[in-house]
């Protein structure tokens, strides 16, 4: 698959301005020489493998791809991909990616983050990135626990969770990342599961194709501190537990049944769907909740620059001389 063949034709592609290559690529081309150091059995391995396997499908030049992460287990991700990358500081990856994406239209920008990184310390940057609709794809690894700091509850942990910092049970009501993203007026919101490579790849393709901020929540198992958090959604018996969202599929929530439409501008019904997994008696939706078109911050910022440039021809040095020499001046001899 190349950049032009991505799903949802008609929308401007998220990688439209990124140079492509004719050279065949494989997952190996995207594998760096660094040894992967997550715990055995970690869901991050599956996501890494899926991403390494999927990136060649985009057909982009490797040197025009940037992965940015914050702090946490998942934030090691960029080190393992042979692209450009930055492993930054806790929670700030969306802001750094905003700078990269705004400065350069020719880059495919990805953020790798976790539930603590994105929703706790970095919550502000996440919602503002979604609101601005900067052209980037955010992979939010949600394992509902703090792994790197060894097992405290996270902002997505279920209330009452017994952890190292909450021996009598946690008191916090959890965020639902999909609901949060929809509330922040995100233009692309999806959910998938680490162990389902096919679904993960499909969602990643659509997210990359989306022009604007794509938020992909990935249910990711932490085998050490929160093992089995998503077991009911995995394996052969999970079919009834999962509601696989596709455009046009009939969905039922709160007594209403309707045909799911991720492109519906009004997020009301998409939000209603996102609330389903808070009820243990209803299936958990995975797939694309919302995908709507809205001008991106970075495209518009560049357009303003281009407009201003056209209106001011001439050499920069001449224009600089005119600028600093503007206003009332006088001569001293």
């Amino acid at each position, binding site marked *: 698959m190349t950049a032009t063949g991505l799903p949802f034709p008609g929308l401007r592609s998220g990688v439209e301005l990124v140079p492509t290559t004719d050279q065949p690529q494989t997952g190996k081309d995207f594998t760096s020489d660094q040894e992967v150091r997550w715990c055995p*059995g*970690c869901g991050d391995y599956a996501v890494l*493998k899926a991403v390494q396997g999927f990136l060649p499908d985009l057909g982009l030049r490797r040197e025009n791809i940037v992965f940015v992460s914050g702090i946490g287990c998942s934030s090691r991700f960029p080190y393992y991909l042979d692209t450009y990358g930055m492993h930054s500081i806790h929670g700030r990856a969306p802001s750094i990616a905003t700078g990269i994406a705004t400065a350069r239209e020719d880059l495919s920008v990805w953020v790798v983050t976790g539930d603590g990184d994105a929703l706790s310390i970095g919550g502000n940057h996440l919602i503002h990135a979604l609101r601005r609709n900067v052209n980037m794809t955010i992979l939010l690894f949600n394992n509902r626990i703090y792994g790197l700091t060894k097992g405290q509850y996270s902002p997505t942990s279920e209330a009452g969770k017994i952890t190292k910092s909450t021996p009598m049970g946690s008191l916090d009501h959890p965020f639902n990342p999909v609901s949060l993203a929809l509330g922040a007026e995100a233009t692309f919101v999806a959910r998938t599961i*680490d*162990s*389902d*490579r096919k679904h993960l790849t499909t969602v990643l393709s659509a997210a990359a194709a989306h022009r604007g901020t794509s938020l992909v929540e990935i249910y990711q198992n932490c085998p050490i501190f929160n093992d089995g958090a998503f077991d009911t959604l995995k*394996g052969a018996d999970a079919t009834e537990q999962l509601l696989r969202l596709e455009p046009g599929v009939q969905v039922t929530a709160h007594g209403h049944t309707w045909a799911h439409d991720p492109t519906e501008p009004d997020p009301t019904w998409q939000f209603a769907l996102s609330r389903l997994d808070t009820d243990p008696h209803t299936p958990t939706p995975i797939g694309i909740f919302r995908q709507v078109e809205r001008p991106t911050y970075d495209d518009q910022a560049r357009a303003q620059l281009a407009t201003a440039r056209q209106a001011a021809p001439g050499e920069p040095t001449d224009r600089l001389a005119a600028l600093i020499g503007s206003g009332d001046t006088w001569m001293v001899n």
Partner: protein
Amino acid sequence: MTYVISQGCIDLKDRACVDECPVDCIYEGPRMLYIHPDECVDCGACEPVCPVEAIAYEDDLPSESAGYLAINAEVFADLGSPGGAAGAGMMPADHPLVAAAQASA
């Protein structure tokens, strides 16, 4: 890269590794278990739980087991990549070399 199951598994099939694998990529043949090299995500969860140390990372495979890298791959030639062992059921046959292997004493 992938993890590889070798001769220690033949006629043993402890299956502890199957329970550990987060992506369900360990498939069962009549005589032994096989790791699907395209579905394995290199996470290493299977390796320490094998009671006979029959699982190794491809780079760490002992020389006497070197052939099992190809065996684990070739056995899926017809099956392709089903994306999960649970739904695939028992494979119809072992790799010919495994099928022909002498039963361990």
